[in-house]
């Protein structure tokens, strides 16, 4: 057994986290910053933070992930990292020449109280920031929130530093896509443009973390939201923020800074959430939904009606991030699956009440915890197994030990490809999710059926 020490008996833990269902803020900030065009993320802390974040993102995307670090030593930790950051800014602009350096802090630099804007000011006064170039920052202490918070904070920093309003509205809307895959961001953009709506999306990691093999390496690839586009976000007609936790803060900041009204929606994963997204787009954009979108919706619905017998009453265990889990749980309930265990490592009371509301009519006890871990999740599974689990790659250890089908969903996925190329948002993404769920369930059925009931047609 891979997790041979996990027992059925659940003992209360107050201080110990085992097999976390979350990681720390800075990696989310780094991921968000990669969604700015010509931007180099920079980690203000020890080297290890940057190395760990780059490694994890690289394993997840199988793509180059470039970022700088302030390389704190013991001396810098005592006397402050100003000299380190000023030197980093100088070296980065001289050697790598990005348009933007997006600095995020770490538990080290937060504990000693580093003031990034003051240091950036010093670097500017020393002539280390070339004209027309920017150093932006987000505070991302690792001991507050999770990787989702870090993503939200860096996305908000894009608004704080760039969005401006010159009073004349532009015929475009802002889309804040949430902590989703580059493929999802691409799909969200496609849906918006399918409705004939112009948009600015930020961050945008498509064509950054799913770039093609061309025989060339570009330090700064084609993708990412430009500074110019970010500036124009202050004059957009409205903002649609997808995912309360990851996108809410930036949307609200844009509202208070530039008076751009916002709609904060669930991530468009599954039928109802995608319906809500498309309907909101239609209303805000003053357009009618084209037939092409109706066709996509109809196809997704067709899979659900055709294969409903395999979804019905199946118990599912979910581990992941709040924004994703809310939409996913709602989707599963809508196709008559029963999400019975739902664990996120990200704290939040609203999450639990929202999940309870979504699963109200599930005819089974539903256990939900925010601020939980995969050890607890595994213990639940040991007490009463489920038919399917969905979550990041770490779930495969539980899947193998307990012999339960498993669909990879969320972050990080370290052992399969696809997530960066094929979306799970929108109707097309929903079709992909349904296909994955069916594959897992039906492969299991084929494996476990007695010979006499092994069937050709399913």
């Amino acid at each position, binding site marked *: 057994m*891979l997790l*041979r*020490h996990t027992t059925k008996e659940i*003992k209360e*833990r*107050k*201080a*110990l*986290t*085992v*097999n*976390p269902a979350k*990681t*720390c803020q*800075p990696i989310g900030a780094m991921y968000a910053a990669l969604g700015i065009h010509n931007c180099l993320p920079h980690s203000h*802390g*020890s*080297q*290890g*933070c940057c*190395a*760990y974040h780059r*490694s994890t993102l*690289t394993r997840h995307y*199988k793509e*180059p992930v*470039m970022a*700088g670090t302030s*390389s*704190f*030593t*013991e*001396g*810098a*930790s005592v006397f402050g990292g100003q000299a*380190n*950051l000023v*030197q*980093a*800014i*100088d*070296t980065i602009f*001289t*050697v*790598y020449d990005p348009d933007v350096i997006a600095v995020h802090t770490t*538990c*080290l630099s937060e*504990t000693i109280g580093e003031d990034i804007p003051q240091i950036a000011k010093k670097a500017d006064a020393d002539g280390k920031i070339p004209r027309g170039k920017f150093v932006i920052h987000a505070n991302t*202490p*690792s*001991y*507050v929130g999770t990787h989702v918070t870090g993503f939200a904070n860096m996305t908000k920093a894009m608004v704080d530093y760039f969005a401006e309003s010159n009073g004349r509205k532009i015929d475009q809307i802002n889309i804040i896509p949430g902590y989703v895959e580059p493929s999802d961001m691409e799909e969200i953009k496609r849906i918006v443009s399918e409705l004939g709506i112009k948009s600015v999306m930020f961050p945008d990691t498509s064509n950054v973390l799913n*770039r093609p*093999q*061309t*025989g*060339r*390496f570009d330090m700064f690839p084609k993708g990412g939201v430009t500074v110019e586009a970010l500036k124009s976000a202050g004059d957009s007609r409205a903002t649609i923020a997808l995912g309360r936790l990851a996108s809410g803060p930036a949307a609200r900041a844009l509202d208070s800074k530039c008076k751009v009204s916002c709609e904060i929606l669930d991530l468009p994963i599954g039928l109802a959430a995608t319906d809500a997204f498309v309907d909101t787009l239609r209303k805000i954009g003053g357009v009618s939904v084209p037939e092409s979108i109706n066709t996509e919706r109809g196809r997704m619905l067709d899979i659900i009606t055709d294969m409903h017998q395999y979804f019905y009453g199946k118990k599912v265990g979910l581990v992941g991030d709040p924004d994703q889990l809310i939409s996913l749980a709602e989707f599963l309930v809508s196709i008559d699956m029963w999400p019975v265990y739902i664990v996120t*490592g990200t704290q939040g009371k609203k999450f639990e009440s929202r999940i309870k509301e979504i699963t109200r009519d599930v005819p089974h006890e539903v256990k939900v915890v925010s601020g939980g871990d995969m050890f607890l999740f595994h213990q639940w599974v040991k007490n009463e197994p489920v038919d399917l689990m969905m979550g990041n790659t*770490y779930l495969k250890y539980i899947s193998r030990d307990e012999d339960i089908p498993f669909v990879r969903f969320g972050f990080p996925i370290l052992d399969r490809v696809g997530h960066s190329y094929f979306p799970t948002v929108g109707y097309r993404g929903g079709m992909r999710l349904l296909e994955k769920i069916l594959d897992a369930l039906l492969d299991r059925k084929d494996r476990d059926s007695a010979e006499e009931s092994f069937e050709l047609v399913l």
Partner: protein
Amino acid sequence: MAPSKTNSAIENESIDPNELKAELVAKYPTKVGRKRAKQIVVNKVGECGEVPEIGANARTIPGIITQRGCSYAGCKGVVLGPTRDIVNLTHGPIGCGFYSWLTRRNQTRPDGPEDANFMTYCFSTDLQDEDIVFGGEKKLRQAIREIYENFKPKAIGIFSTCPVGLIGDDVHAVAREMKEELGINIFGFSCEGYKGVSQSAGHHIANNGLFTHVVGLDDTVREGKFKINLLGEYNIGGDAFELERIFDEAGITLVATFSGNSSYDQFANSHTADLNTIMCHRSINYVAEMMEKKFGIPWIKVNFIGAGSTAKSLRKIANYFEDEELIERVEKLIGEEMVEVEKVRLEIKSRCEGKLAMLFVGGSRAHHYQDLFSEIGMKTVAAGYEFAHRDDYEGRGVLPDIKIDADSRNIEELEVEADPERYSPRKSEEALERLEAKGFRFKDYDGMMPEMESGTMIIDDISQYETEKMIEVYKPDIFCAGIKEKFAIQKKGIPMKQLHSYDSGGPYAGFKGAINFWREIDRMVNSKVWGYMKAPWQKAPELTATYAWE
């Protein structure tokens, strides 16, 4: 089958390495360039193997885009990570524990289904802001109690992350207190990420901790005529399993491995071995030095990467024991293993000979893997370490000349004395003299540079910019580094082999490992996929044909 190490200039004579060095350095701000100039060296091997001085184990320049990680990674991730039955508790915010959870491909094989294996678990105190403000010791104590209640391990290691040192949590005091309370071995490591200048500091801290708290706790002398420890072997991709097989067949008893496929009991008992053999000199030489002083166990440098190197290292071990039967058994084993090895080597050499490699990785791998490449006729045109010191480049002869800077001084150097009861020199003075007269060298390592050709480029702590430039200039057939470097290099159309984690491969150590590695390199450098970068219409954009229906 000695690897051919000629001193001829590298084939591509149009490249002037000194000019290239000047070009690399010129890109940086002046001060930065001056620092980098010390760490970029054009190799020149003198008649007695003397090489130029290189700057190493120096602070990384902020913003340069380094390969390096931190002290915590070296301590928890590298040295202690591969031991299966110690619960490794990360004391800090969640990230550090999360990122070092199962990501290094250390394999382990517990003796039976009931035996402990905590390597699939991640344990953390997950410090929150109130802990940073009020201190995390209380939470640490409670977490240790909860580990004990849930897992009943025989030992717990506590690993400090950056904020722990800054807020002044005394992990060592908590460890002592909880050891008393729970009656199991508990020890702490002050391996905060800001200690030292790279992972290397963490290795040293881990060595000190293991030596102080675990080594020597169990005096049981195991059976076996030829008892050794293998140090600096981390069982990436199953390396340790292949080496265990070889030792077993040679009749050599492996008491402990630090730390591939290891257990707590092996460490506790490791001082009963009669020889320490060192693979990764950088990460573990401290333990060998301390064991020699305290228990009288001599150490030798070995290298089991490369078939020829494996044979050489086995002979070295057999010669140390001066036992005819062992020497014969080792020769017989080498003879048997080499049949298949030679067959594969020659086949693959026919496809790889003359191709160029670059290795920028680790603290020993950039050296060791050159043997595997040279055995199939591939040349290493440039190499460098991520976190090694000057002695790993230039040989241990430079040790007295290495200046101790502020960053190194912060890492504790243990005062070790001979154990009054258990110190016992494994070899008499006469035996040592006899061996040395025959050319046997103890506690010696020549380093990487004397074994590389003159004119090759040696770059310490290579940056992203330098990596790209080196590829553009030399156009190597393969580049070896780590996961962060991998895809930027492959995007350029050059295969990149990870030598930290081996990508998905391994074992690469020992005889079977050599075969695996050669087949992997053959796959990579001769793969068709690198030829598909241009679509037909990109190769011949001119439209000359007519429509089929015309």
